């Protein structure tokens, strides 16, 4: 009984670290390309988040399942092929079922292949942990990534377009700050949000470095 409880606790912890304490965007600063590029609106951020969640979850599960079969020297190439295959599936699905979203996200869907978050989770977690824990970890990280994208998309859409999920918030007299949906706005919004999070998280927990290069 105690053992089962400990196991559940472990799984719950694997799941929850991705949501906040090791959040990929705000605490690890991973996967910056899509974070900046597609967060022009809530819908775009959400779609990208879901696509990444799918790829991350499937790739982590597969890597955890086959980790003993892959020779150490070619593991990275193997992981990349697995990730690229799931990205192809996600891309074809989006193109077929949601052509408008697929068009809005453009080349950033195939670029999920090189999202450092996915490779980092495969390499540092799924390759050393059993399958169920890797699935919990991937789900937590994916959801953590997705809500970050939705938050940034919300801020940029609200100020850049005066709306949220296409519903007008500020009324007709609001003059949209176009800069917010242009590239410059992406950098500045993320910079300010990171600064605010640092401000409120105390000195020991401030994030100053990205975990990828």
């Amino acid at each position: 009984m105690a053992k089962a409880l400990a196991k559940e606790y472990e799984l719950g912890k694997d799941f929850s670290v991705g949501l906040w304490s090791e959040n990929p965007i705000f605490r690890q600063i991973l996967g910056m390309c899509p974070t900046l590029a597609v967060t022009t609106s809530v819908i775009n951020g959400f779609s990208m988040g879901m696509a990444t969640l799918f790829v991350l979850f499937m790739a982590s599960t597969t890597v955890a399942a086959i980790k003993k079969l892959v020779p150490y020297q070619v593991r990275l190439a193997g992981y990349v092929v697995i990730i690229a295959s799931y990205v192809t599936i996600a891309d074809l699905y989006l193109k077929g079922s949601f052509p408008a979203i697929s068009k809005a996200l453009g080349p950033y869907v195939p670029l999920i292949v090189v999202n450092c978050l996915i490779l980092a989770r495969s390499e540092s977690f799924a390759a050393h942990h059993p399958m169920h824990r890797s699935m919990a970890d991937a789900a937590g990280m994916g959801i953590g990534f997705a809500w970050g994208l939705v938050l940034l998309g919300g801020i940029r859409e609200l100020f850049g377009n005066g709306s949220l999920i296409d519903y007008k918030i500020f009324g007709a007299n609001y003059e949209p700050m176009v800069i917010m949906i242009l590239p410059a706005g992406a950098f500045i919004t993320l910079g300010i949000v990171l600064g605010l999070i640092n401000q409120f998280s105390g000195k020991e927990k401030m994030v100053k470095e990205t975990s990828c290069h």
Partner: protein
Amino acid sequence: MKFLLVFLSAAIVNNFVLTYFLGICPFLGVSKKTEAAFSMGLATTFVMTLAAMISWLINNFILIKYNLPFLQYVTFILAIASVVQFVEMYVKKASPALYHSLGIYLPLITTNCAVLGLALFAALRNYNFIETLFFGMGAGVGFTLALIIMAGIREELELSNTPKALEGVAITLIVAGLLALAFMGFSGMISV
């Protein structure tokens, strides 16, 4: 003359880092010192040019010919990973001094989204071989340019009085936003 326009467009007008957000990870991670930024830029430019050519050959002579467009992502990323591996092996053998200064950056280039983005853009826009070659070079030069400008600014920032909470990545992102604003001045000059 279109290839010259493609080069200028990729290097300045539609800068990969500041308008397409490609290669943000090294842009934030390796932009602390100008020398390191220059080495990283050089290594990336070389790999980008090579990867652009090889992915063009694969795309046109294998994928399009045998009607296999769905294999694009898998083949491109594998081609890029192999190019990086071969470049690393060659540089190690041919010039140990160069390997010493570039070596640590080379493996990181595989997961640099700018390289895969370049291959995808070139395929999407139907560039011919010469245009692809110059597109790769231009994108590399643009990446190096952005990286060096950023490193220069960050060296100065080290000495200035930044708010505690903004130190590191946060202030770098805000500065990048201002740089992107400056680069917006070029927008619309060339549309290729």
